[in-house]
């Protein structure tokens, strides 16, 4: 049966309408993952030396053992953020003569195929072979390996279970993070106990009594059964769907009324952003980007303007870039409705500018505290804010006219490549390079301030001439709209 499911899934993949594109995406992803794994391997290979450097005078294996539990705590946190729930669309199978546990086993089995499960083994294996095998022997080698595999599997199924719980009830997220924070603060802040000492003690004990490693396999089994039971009792359509049945109220955003129809459209789009999972996570990501400057500005080797230009562009323009690159796919589900309704293309585009301005201004306001690093930071941020509103908005909307991919709003954004295509990659080139093409030549000649001024002037020119470019965009939109609408109808 599992085989049949696998065949169905591969058919679903190959026969989907965007197959060609998604194959390319998968290849790119695969290369990225391979590269990451290669990095892991390099680290793993030199792990003994690294440990010697970081913990001088300590037995390598002891330091290794003391880090294991930390690693798996981090791992859990990362998994919680990024691991995808396996999604065989079970809907067409539920009413057939297929036992539920076949479905669940399939879901559990396929979910194992993730880099999260590969890294701990890859990371520890070279050290185990280099250090444990010659010094302690085969039994000890296996006992540590089995422990690590057991912990990996426990983490794997635990994160699946907790994620499903969180999907149904956000309280679980609070409980989960609360417990994690409690543990970490008990360790680092209150120094009540030490996870590293616990970890070292635990695994040194295992080294002495290798058979006890089976405890971790048992733990993995228990968590698997927990996850299994949970799935089994919840494998119903409505529950796999969202259980979000709370009362939805109609919200008003009064201030926007004064912008006429474009304002109404922005009000709608704000609702789109707030009420759907994927755009919401774009907003969260954008907010996280507000800390981007801390990485650069606290680094004393990073002087000069170019870093600020870069950071400033990203921080004030992150919404334009992150949200704008998928325009108009956000509205793919009701694009036909927009085309036949009494919304003129001009108002449609105006609303996008309004939205960009609104969010960029918020971002700019949020980055004002960076003035702590000097006035020039604030000034450059402002210049990049103008650049974003003048140039990047136009750029993003120009590319929006050639984006024909549908997006499902209800899915999360991490590692979600739906709607990603060539246009996003091509878009990123001028987006990243343009300000530097202007700034660098003047910087090299010794006039960095002139470079900044030029960026500001160009940004202003485009802002002032926006109406002209708007007309061009609308014209192009009128030609392309059939293609866009057709693309959006392909689910």
């Amino acid at each position, binding site marked *: 049966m599992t085989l049949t499911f696998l065949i169905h899934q591969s058919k679903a993949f190959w026969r989907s309408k965007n197959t060609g594109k998604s194959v390319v995406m998968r290849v790119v992803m695969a290369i990225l993952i391979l590269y990451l794994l290669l990095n892991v391997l390099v680290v793993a290979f030199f792990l003994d030396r690294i440990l010697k450097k970081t913990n001088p005078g300590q037995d390598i294996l002891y330091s290794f053992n003391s880090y294991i539990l930390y690693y798996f705590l981090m791992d859990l946190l990362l998994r919680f953020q990024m691991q995808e729930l396996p999604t065989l669309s079970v809907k067409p199978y539920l009413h057939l003569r297929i036992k539920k546990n076949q479905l669940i086993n399939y879901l559990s089995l396929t979910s194992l195929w993730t880099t999260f499960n590969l890294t701990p083994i890859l990371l520890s294996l070279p050290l185990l072979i280099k250090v444990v095998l010659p010094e302690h022997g085969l039994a000890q080698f296996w006992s540590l390996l089995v422990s690590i595999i057991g912990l990996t599997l426990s983490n794997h199924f635990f994160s699946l279970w907790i994620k499903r719980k969180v999907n149904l009830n956000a309280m679980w997220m609070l409980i989960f993070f609360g417990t994690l924070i409690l543990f970490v603060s008990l360790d680092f802040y209150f120094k009540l106990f030490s996870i590293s000492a616990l970890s070292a003690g635990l695994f040194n004990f295992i080294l002495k009594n290798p058979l006890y490693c089976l405890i971790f396999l048992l733990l993995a089994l228990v968590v698997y059964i927990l996850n299994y039971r949970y799935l089994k009792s919840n494998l119903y359509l409505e529950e796999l769907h969202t259980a979000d049945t709370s*009362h*939805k*109220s*109609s*919200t008003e955003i009064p201030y926007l009324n004064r912008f006429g*129809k474009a304002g*109404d459209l922005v009000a*709608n789009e704000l*609702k*789109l952003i707030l*009420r*759907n999972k994927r755009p919401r996570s774009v907003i969260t990501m954008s907010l996280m980007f507000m800390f981007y400057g801390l990485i650069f500005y606290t680094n004393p080797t990073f002087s000069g303007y170019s870093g600020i230009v870069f950071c400033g562009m990203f921080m004030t323009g992150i919404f334009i870039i992150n949200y704008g690159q998928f325009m108009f796919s956000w509205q793919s*589900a*009701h*694009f*036909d*409705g927009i*085309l*036949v*309704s*009494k*919304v*003129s293309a001009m108002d449609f585009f105006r609303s996008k500018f309004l939205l960009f301005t609104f969010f960029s201004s918020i971002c700019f306001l949020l980055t004002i505290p960076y003035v702590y690093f000097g006035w020039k930071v604030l000034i450059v941020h402002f210049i990049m804010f103008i650049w974003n509103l003048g140039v990047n908005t136009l750029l993003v909307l120009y590319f929006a006219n050639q984006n024909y991919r549908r997006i499902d*709003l209800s899915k999360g954004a991490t590692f979600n490549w739906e709607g990603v295509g060539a246009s996003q990659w091509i878009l990123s080139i001028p987006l990243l390079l343009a300000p530097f093409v202007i700034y660098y030549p003047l910087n090299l000649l010794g006039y960095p301030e002139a470079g900044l001024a030029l960026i500001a002037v160009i940004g202003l020119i485009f802002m002032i001439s926006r109406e002209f470019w708007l007309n061009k965009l609308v014209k192009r939109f009128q030609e392309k709209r*059939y293609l866009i*609408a*057709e693309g959006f*109808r392909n689910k």
Partner: protein
Amino acid sequence: MIGISNLKKKYNGVTVVNIPELIIKRGETVGLVGNNGAGKTTLFRMMLDLIRPDSGEVLSDEKNVAESEAWKDYTASYLDEGFLIDYLTPEEYFHFIGGLHNKSKVQVDSELPAFSEFFNGEILKKGKYIRDLSKGNQTKVGVAACMIQNPQILMLDEPFANIDPSTQIRLKNMVKDISREKHITTIISSHDLNHVTEVCERILLMEKGKIIKDIATNSNTLQELEQYFSVLS
């Protein structure tokens, strides 16, 4: 009101729509029937400028729909859920649509009670987003949104398909009333021959993209259509 000439659309070499000429007069109630794949939805989409025809044109009030946007002012349509903004509540959606036609919220709210029978207490003040409604209820939202626009042309693609019998009857009466009282041009497609022959004065029968019959409805029409479809099967 609507004029079609030499309208053609092909997909992968198969002609889906091929209509040399069709004129729909102001105030006519037209029913579009035909088996699946006859080209009804494609025709609708071309009339609404959602698909670019390979050749020919659709004129609405003498103006080509692909060139002028004036038709949007007086045309209301509901083909499928793709026309609804599904993350809004029905009320928000009605307000938005009303707003596009310069109706204030208060105005829209004052019109909504007229639909209370049609909605059967399942749409308004339920605290649900449109995406959480059943397909039938989504159809109701779409149809009501059309009515709010006070259109001169109304296009509905299989409006009877997902709704319950009582609502089907209410919808029929609603369409008959508005076309009689306000002289609205209505185009409805349906697989339910009883309903179309009852509502529509004129029936267009499509097969493989062509209009093969154009009948003014009379007492024999239903029989004639039933005969055509039973011969086919």
